[in-house]
């Protein structure tokens, strides 16, 4: 069943000049569990909420290192995200092969944008059903890059994508002026507080369902171990939960089609 005759394919424009298939792919991203990225002058942090299919399965990996100076987190179809993470890894290594040094983050953003755009134009492909956040540090300082399936790729002070991410963005917009001068520890706390706002009241962050990645000046990208995650979560637990944050944001209902 199609909603109208213009939404079956990415290669068709609607009479209003819109691409419905691309817009639906953005919906796929919005169903995946949330991820948050923020940066200071010297560091960039990404945190992500992992889901497990059931009690017996492990949590899905959502944060990847792509080079010593950059990492990504994913929201949406995780298998699409893994492809993009792998793509970025090869971009990083081919730049290193050519120039014996780390690739500028702006180059990664551009390559990403062109790759995503191609999947919104050419027949026989579908857009990637995933959004990613790139956290990186280069000569221009710290970066958070947000991408989505429509190939919008944009540099942010802080952002969040995925399910109920509006709640996280509300938190970030309220606090964005503090980020620039934050210490790495403070950044992680801000990111976790924003991430927590995407959870329904009965759930909470824990060392198993939370990933933290950080990169910055003189410190290569690192994906924190569960024990380290727990330390940061302790810091967060002292902050009272804002009621209404998650509840106010409309949660997409119904069962989820794939593991996100």
């Amino acid at each position: 069943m199609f909603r109208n005759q213009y939404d079956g394919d990415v290669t068709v424009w609607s009479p209003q000049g819109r691409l419905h298939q691309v817009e639906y792919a953005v919906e796929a991203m919005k169903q995946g569990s949330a991820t948050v990225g923020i940066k200071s002058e010297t560091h960039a942090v990404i945190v992500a909420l992992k889901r497990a299919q059931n009690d017996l399965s492990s949590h899905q990996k959502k944060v990847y290192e792509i080079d010593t100076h950059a990492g990504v987190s994913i929201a949406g179809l995780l298998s699409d995200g893994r492809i993009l993470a792998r793509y970025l890894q090869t971009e990083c290594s081919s730049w290193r092969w050519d120039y014996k040094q780390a690739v500028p983050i702006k180059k990664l953003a551009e390559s990403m944008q062109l790759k995503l755009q191609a999947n919104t134009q050419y027949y026989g492909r579908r857009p990637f059903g995933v959004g990613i956040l790139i956290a990186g540090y280069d000569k221009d300082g710290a970066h958070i890059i947000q991408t989505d399936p429509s190939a919008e790729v944009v540099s942010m002070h802080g952002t969040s994508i995925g399910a109920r991410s509006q709640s996280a963005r509300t938190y970030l917009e309220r606090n964005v002026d503090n980020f620039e001068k934050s210490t790495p520890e403070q950044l992680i706390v801000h990111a976790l507080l924003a991430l927590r706002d995407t959870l329904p009241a009965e759930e909470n962050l824990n060392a198993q369902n939370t990933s933290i990645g950080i990169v910055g000046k003189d410190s290569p990208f690192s994906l924190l171990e569960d024990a380290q995650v727990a330390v940061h979560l302790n810091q967060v637990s002292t902050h009272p939960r804002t009621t209404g944050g998650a509840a106010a944001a409309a949660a997409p209902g119904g069962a989820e089609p794939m593991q996100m």
Partner: protein
Amino acid sequence: MNAHDEVQRTLNPTCTGTSVIALQYKTGVVVLTDRVVSYGKMARYKNVSRQYKVNDNVLIAFGGDHADFHWLQNVIERQVLLWKRFDQDIGPKALHGYLTSLLYAKRCKMNPVWNTLVVAGVEEEEKNNKETSTPFIGVITQKGCAYQVKHIATGLGAFLLNQAVEDEWRKKGEDLSREEAEAVLRKSLELTLYHDCVADNEFEIGRVDATEGVVLGKEEKIIGDWSIAETNCQYE
């Protein structure tokens, strides 16, 4: 492979330049090249530079085939544009790395670029912070053999000068001033002039300085002391 499939390649350089001499000083690098183009052993053209300004941080000097370098110049120009697109100025380290891969790949296809390159510059660790910039000299041979050095003499200079430059360098090392470094270069050129028949007495000294950026040299001339010629038994 049939006879007519055989690829013919240039097996000899035609219009060539000889030695490049470069030396680090406290806050930058100085580079000396002469200004003659040789055709075999004939001094075919005068007043031709062998130094190319890549951007404010990088200067390349070359020995070997001029035409090959002109081709390389275009390759480099496009690399500069590529980096600009990402708001970056390509640094000497990155360019040295890139040219190393390029020259090695070409020689593996049995089609080498007939140049010895000296990539001179200052490497910016952070944008807009000259304090962290460091001088850089990288060498690449036409076989893709590459290394980084504090001072270098290529071409016939490699046989004649490296010890002389090294001796001067050891006296002061990192603390060499620009004037002292340039004096070493001028003295070195004088030495090649006596021994290298394709070296010329008209030359230029370019530099890359952390604060001034790339400064191309002006044409200079030395005569040297030819009284020793009297004692050379090979002369009639």
